[in-house]
């Protein structure tokens, strides 16, 4: 059963220069306890998908259509009060910059106990005690001392642990993590990924992991979505997509990532051209100017989704239905 189902979501930004389609007809599901990775380069709309789910789309952006079903309830239709409860309650969030997610003028323990009081109805005293426990649970040494630390007193890795602790202290069903390790060093990244896996197993929590790093995807996700210019290009089991990418963009992306230890024999081809400006998208398939397979049929209309075995879908004229 799907915990989260996003249906034909479209989020546009209405700018002076025109309409910017940051997310355009994106459909996917996240099941209970599952990790789904949302992969793409800059401007592919992956962050806006997360913001749309949480109703945090910054102005002048707007969700123009689509459904966001969380436990069968459309989050776009529920009351503000209900939404506020799910946000930070049943849905936790972790953002890229751990510094920006924490309020610099309060100690981290206080920020966490605030969340606990709000969403789990604890008293101040209970919440303070629970905060110590949760901080210890995310691997922060000496949690009794660190609850009183201000964000600036912690290192980047510790800060991200604190953010994760705050996001998960309400035992959410779904964690949305937007580039949670991009700002961190590899050694710290590895620890944070370990922590996320651990918490996920502990609370049977589903994760929507947004990242551009295919290494992180391979390590964490059971299923993945590939987005480009606001559109969904390919979706399927991580293993399948890595073994046999169908979409030329997914193929190109996989050929862009250097693999440690492969040496120089493994060619790093990348994709010619650059990610287009979202205000000047090419017509038809938005990838066709960079695609080596493209021909006349790709120029006019965006390809419809092809359905492939094992719940896999792919938007490409060159991929035939089963």
């Amino acid at each position: 059963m799907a915990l989260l189902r996003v249906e034909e979501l479209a989020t546009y930004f209405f700018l002076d220069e025109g309409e910017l389609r940051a997310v355009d007809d994106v459909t996917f599901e996240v099941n209970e306890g599952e990790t789904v990775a949302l992969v793409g380069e800059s401007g592919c709309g992956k962050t806006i998908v997360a913001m749309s789910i949480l109703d945090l789309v910054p102005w002048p952006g707007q969700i123009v259509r689509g459904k966001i079903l969380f436990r069968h309830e459309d989050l776009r239709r529920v009351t503000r009060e209900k939404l506020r409860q799910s946000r930070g309650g049943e849905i936790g969030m972790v953002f890229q910059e751990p510094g920006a997610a924490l309020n610099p003028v309060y100690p981290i323990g206080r920020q966490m106990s605030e969340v606990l009081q709000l969403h789990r109805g604890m008293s101040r005293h209970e919440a303070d005690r629970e905060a110590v426990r949760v901080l210890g649970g995310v691997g922060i040494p000496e949690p009794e001392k660190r609850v009183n630390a201000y964000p600036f007193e912690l290192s980047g890795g510790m800060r991200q642990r604190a953010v994760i602790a705050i996001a998960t202290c309400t035992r959410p069903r779904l964690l949305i993590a937007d580039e949670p390790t991009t700002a961190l060093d590899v050694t710290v990244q590895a620890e944070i990924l370990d922590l996320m896996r651990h918490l996920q197993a502990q609370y049977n929590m589903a994760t929507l992991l947004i990242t551009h790093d295919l290494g992180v995807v391979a390590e964490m996700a059971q299923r993945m979505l590939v987005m480009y210019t606001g559109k969904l290009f390919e979706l399927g089991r991580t293993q399948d997509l890595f073994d046999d990418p169908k979409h030329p963009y997914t193929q190109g992306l996989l050929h862009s990532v250097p693999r440690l230890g492969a040496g120089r024999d493994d060619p790093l081809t990348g994709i010619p051209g650059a990610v287009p400006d979202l205000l000047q998208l090419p017509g038809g398939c938005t990838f066709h100017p960079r695609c080596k397979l493209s021909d006349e049929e790709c120029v006019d209309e965006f390809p419809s989704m092809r359905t492939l075995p094992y719940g896999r879908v792919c938007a490409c004229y060159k991929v035939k239905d089963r």
Partner: protein
Amino acid sequence: MSLLQVSGLKTHFPFGSRWFGERSWVRAVDGVDLGLDRGEVLGLVGESGSGKTTLGRSVLRLVEPTDGSVMLDGVDVLKLGRRRLRPLRQRMQIVFQDPYASLSPRLQIRRIIAEPMRLYRLANKHDESAKVEELLESVGLEPYFMQRYPHEMSGGQRQRIAIARALSCEPDLLVADEPVSALDVSVQAQVLGILLRLQRERGIGLLFISHDLSVVERVADRVAVMYLGRIMEEAPVGDLIHGALHPYTQALLSAVPDPDPEYRRERIRLRGELPSPSEPLRGCPFASRCPEAQQVCLDLTPKLEEKKPGQAVACHLR
């Protein structure tokens, strides 16, 4: 004689007020020895706070080092006055990480690329356009980009302009400070390809600074690993990736996520956090986090010594 020879380089930044309170020093670079030949690529790897960026800038004297020497073809760059340094600047150039910040926003691309040529009189009025065009072509951009402005270009294109600007000096030494980490994944390969092709064609010595070991593996002939302002290990790229000796290098390698869902590296876990670079150093800088640390590591600072042919390590235990 090698193109670049860095020895005992230290760059310390003052920290705290000069007149009030205590003044301490951040040891960003704390005694580094390096050599780089013409036509060679030296990868410099480290995490944030390791001092790799400061080292790159110290070599070019964009920050003033505290101590040590930087010899470019036998001339000590650090001993020259401003006036005599200038001709040397032509021979050493830099490509920065963020192409959105490294190009002057109000200048046309033509002027950005031609500025160094004019300064060093490498082109006259007549062949300037032709030379700019040639450089644009060499980084894979059409000639009409000459008339454009940085804000009209994508990140990858801007980074190519930054490379073209650096090369318009016709330098012998190029420092590339994370030249692709700000770019989209699919564009990184293009820019790396261009950088390496030009480096090879022109026989430039390239100091390639990066936090990403898998990128460095593709680019570098030799790799130096930095930690807390010091070199921990230096070796030919293959030896380092496949036979790292230093515990820190090993931990670093084991932490790189692999883009293959079925493959898992065995991970070496590190204790604790990067110590503050402002605290005075005693013993091995890595000792506080090293899984194998022993008493000697806490007492004595290890020297970078050749433990295998071509492979130098700063560790008591190897």
